């Protein structure tokens, strides 16, 4: 691969580009799912290809192909150069890249047991058993389980002299069930919904998730939800569970602090951001206990790596410090706009896409409360658990989330459960109402494998460090049910 990468760099220089890079990416995915104790699907996919990115006349051109040989590389370098020249016809603001040290490196993400070395028989036996363990009641009409495994080898080389090879092993798993009775349908999932939880890890992550323990619990809760009352509308104190809090961070902090959105680069699809440049060091994003970081240095987290897709080293930087907005997620192109150098957030999905500013691990740093203490301080509120729905406006201000289950808290004690819980708010007001964050004993990284952004839409794997957090005076029970 390195020889082909060097060949591409030579071609880029011959083509007259002022900068160029190539990424060669080889990816293997296995996705398995079972339903009601039967193997529903088990698919393998393999891909290999390259993407070349060049700057000519101060503008970008990019071309990619799954046909990896010198002839195709030479052809696509020429194509990328031609595309860049056409871009330059309508690009008066010439691209300037922030500086980066050239580096030669090889890296393998942490794992103990390669999931691709586990026999098919063992994977299937576990998958089927986790599905069956949820079938504890005749009202459970669907009991799902799923595993996902990925091996990805990325080779990056640039005309500035970097040559980086990174290998990632990633594992995810989930269980989830539906209960049905009298026209009512209730869902519960573990450890999270929509594919579950993911990590830079091997088969040991499936073992750690301990599905045997949680399968009977979620099926029991799904049945209980069938007769639970609808959550009423009101304004209440809200404690948000860890996996839902991860998504709250994702939507209301992660996306708005991507500097490319702020600069309008994503306005045509995903939207812009309320965190405009004038807000830097001025906006009160949250209460003084709110501290949020972009941290790619936790290598076991799904958003962890050694170098981003521009060869910038993984970093940890504050986005919000003591409630004040202090930083963006940046790239080599966007960082100079605010007089900075890239903090290493530029990544692409596979070989065929251009790199974009993408979340790494966006984390709400832990506080000092225990969960019991957080609950004991609530007179009238709810604890919401596991996401079911999400939506936010195109500047990332007005959000609305739905969860699978709400547990009432009255006079400091947990009480009955409610179904179809929803809550809504405005991002900085909501984070400003945060008055307690659970301690590091409750803190962990949650992997989100399907963050969509860009055109053509790319899917990024990101993560969020989160524990429990408490918010005051939140609107809950939205809509007419």
């Amino acid at each position, binding site marked *: 691969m390195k020889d082909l990468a060097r060949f591409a760099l030579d071609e880029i220089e011959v083509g007259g580009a002022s900068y160029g890079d190539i990424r060669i990416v080889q990816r293997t995915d296995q996705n398995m799912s079972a339903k009601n104790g039967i193997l529903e699907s088990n698919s*393998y996919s*393999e891909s290999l290809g390259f993407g070349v990115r060049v700057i000519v006349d101060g503008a*970008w051109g990019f071309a990619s192909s799954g046909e990896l040989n010198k002839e195709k590389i030479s052809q696509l370098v020429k194509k990328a150069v031609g595309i860049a020249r056409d871009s330059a016809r309508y690009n008066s603001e010439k691209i300037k890249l922030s500086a980066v040290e050239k580096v030669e490196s090889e890296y393998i993400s942490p794992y103990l047991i390669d999931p691709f070395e586990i026999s*098919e028989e063992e994977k299937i036996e576990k998958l089927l058993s986790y599905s069956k363990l949820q079938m504890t009641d005749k009202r459970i009409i669907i009991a799902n389980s799923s595993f996902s495994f990925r091996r990805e080898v990325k080779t990056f080389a640039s005309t500035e002299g970097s040559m980086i090879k990174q290998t990632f092993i990633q594992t995810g798993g989930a269980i989830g069930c539906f209960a049905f009775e009298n026209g009512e349908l209730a869902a519960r999932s573990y450890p999270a919904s929509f594919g579950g939880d993911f990590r830079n890890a091997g088969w040991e992550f499936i073992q750690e998730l301990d599905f045997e323990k949680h399968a009977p619990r979620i099926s029991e809760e799904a049945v209980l939800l069938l007769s639970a009352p609808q959550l009423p509308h009101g304004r209440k104190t809200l404690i948000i569970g860890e996996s839902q809090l991860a998504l709250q961070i994702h939507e209301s902090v992660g996306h708005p602090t991507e500097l490319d959105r702020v600069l309008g680069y994503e306005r045509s699809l995903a939207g812009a951001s309320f965190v405009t440049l004038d807000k830097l060091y001025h906006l009160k994003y949250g209460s003084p206990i709110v501290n949020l970081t972009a941290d790619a240095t936790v290598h076991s987290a799904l958003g962890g790596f050694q170098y981003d897709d521009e060869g910038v080293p993984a970093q940890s930087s504050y986005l919000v410090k003591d409630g004040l907005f202090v930083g963006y997620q940046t790239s080599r192109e966007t960082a100079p706009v605010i007089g900075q150098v890239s903090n290493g957030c530029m990544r692409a999905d596979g070989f*065929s896409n251009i790199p974009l500013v993408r979340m790494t691990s966006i984390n709400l740093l832990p506080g000092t409360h225990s969960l019991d203490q957080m609950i004991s301080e609530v007179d009238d509120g709810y604890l919401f658990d596991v996401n079911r729905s999400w939506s936010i406006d195109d500047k990332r201000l007005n959000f609305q989330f739905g969860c699978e289950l709400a547990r009432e808290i009255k006079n400091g004690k947990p009480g009955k459960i409610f179904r179809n819980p929803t809550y809504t708010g405005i991002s900085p007001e909501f984070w400003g109402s945060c008055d307690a964050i659970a301690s590091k004993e409750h803190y962990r990284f949650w992997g989100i494998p399907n963050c969509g952004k860009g055109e053509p839409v790319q899917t990024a794997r990101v993560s969020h460090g989160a524990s429990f957090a408490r918010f005051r005076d939140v609107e809950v029970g939205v809509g007419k049910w």
Partner: protein
Amino acid sequence: MVRDRLEHFADLLIGYSDADYCRVNVSISENSLTRFANSQIHQNLEQEQFGIVLELVYGKKHGISSMNISDEEALKRMHDRLKTFVLSYPDDDTFVPYPEGGNFSNSSKWDDATGESGSSERAALVGTTINEAKKIDALVFGSLNVKKSFNIVANKYGNKGYNQNTYVDLQVIPAHGDNTTYLHQFSHALGDINILDSLAEPLSRLSLYKDHGEFPSGEQTVILEPNAAGDMMRFLNYMVFSGKAYNEKQSYISDKLGTQVTGSNIFFYDDQAHPLTMGAPFDPELTERKKLSLLEGGKAIEVAHDTKSASIAGTASTGHALFGHSMPICLNPVLQGGDVSRDEMIKGTENGLLITRFNYTNIVNRKKTMFTGMTRNGVYRVKDGKILGTANNMRFTINIMETLKKVAALENKQYFIGGGWFGGIVVPSMKIDGFNFTGTTAF
């Protein structure tokens, strides 16, 4: 010929197989995209993609493998590995054998000039857009996507289905600061895009900016323009009309077929043959896509089935399978139009909102068709039959089925709205009394 190359790979893989059944999907595409922001081209790319998907069935054991590598040695390796894996799987007692299927020749919507176009043609069209907006000191944001795709499905019975398409998707957001409007056009031919004519209305709407601020939450009369109506109806299609969701009690109409579920003015079909749609006439099981009457005068009539879901429901496949997914779905939904123009809808509105499109819509509760999202790129206050100006964007949280009982009028023209999950949809504008807003935002 691209078709010959696709057939070669399909025949090769089927030739390797001793399975009871095997099928192959081979595709080649070239995807070109020019993005612009702040009236500058900032991203510009061309992607060549090759993909092959193989499914093998031995008795009640089955599995799928895919790859993008086109050399014969790799394909043989993929086949042999998949065969080994499938034979090690337990029997799937719910498996239903696939049909023999039929033969389908080229069903293309193809334009040679579009197929031959490149970054220069895209830059020229984007440049015209930028220059036109500049005349009124507006910035433009958007993208121009040109795609050509070639696809073949083949099975062990010797049946094949082939189609090739060109596809153009132009999206433009003109902006004066926070005040934005929207243009989204689709065609199979780049030459069909008349940017100067198309941009006239979105650019003129920028002058409507008068900041009518927040509009109150609660039920309002709305006129949903096609992009908004299409978003809502696309989610309804996904939530309700899959035979799998129907069988698994997850659909609103599970156990309600034949009953009145919306207003009597709603006629919703799946119709691959509709002149505005762009899909293939066959599914990956090589079954012809049947025209479905989903809602007929507000009554729930049919759902989409593949072989498996049809077997569970005790009926026949309607030709709505997806390759590798046990989830049949309508790919060519069409909402029938009405008898009034959009201008007449506006003139007949005493107090309401004209809505350009929605943003980040999502399902709140599938079974109940609860749906939420924000408005985007233009919410206009309509008073006494006239558009007064813009209001702040708003959040809605609605039950779609209940909302479809309150449709006061449908436009007498239909539009193809592409993009999004599972292809495009054909819809008119919709006037709805009692559309439930639950919040607002600051812009």
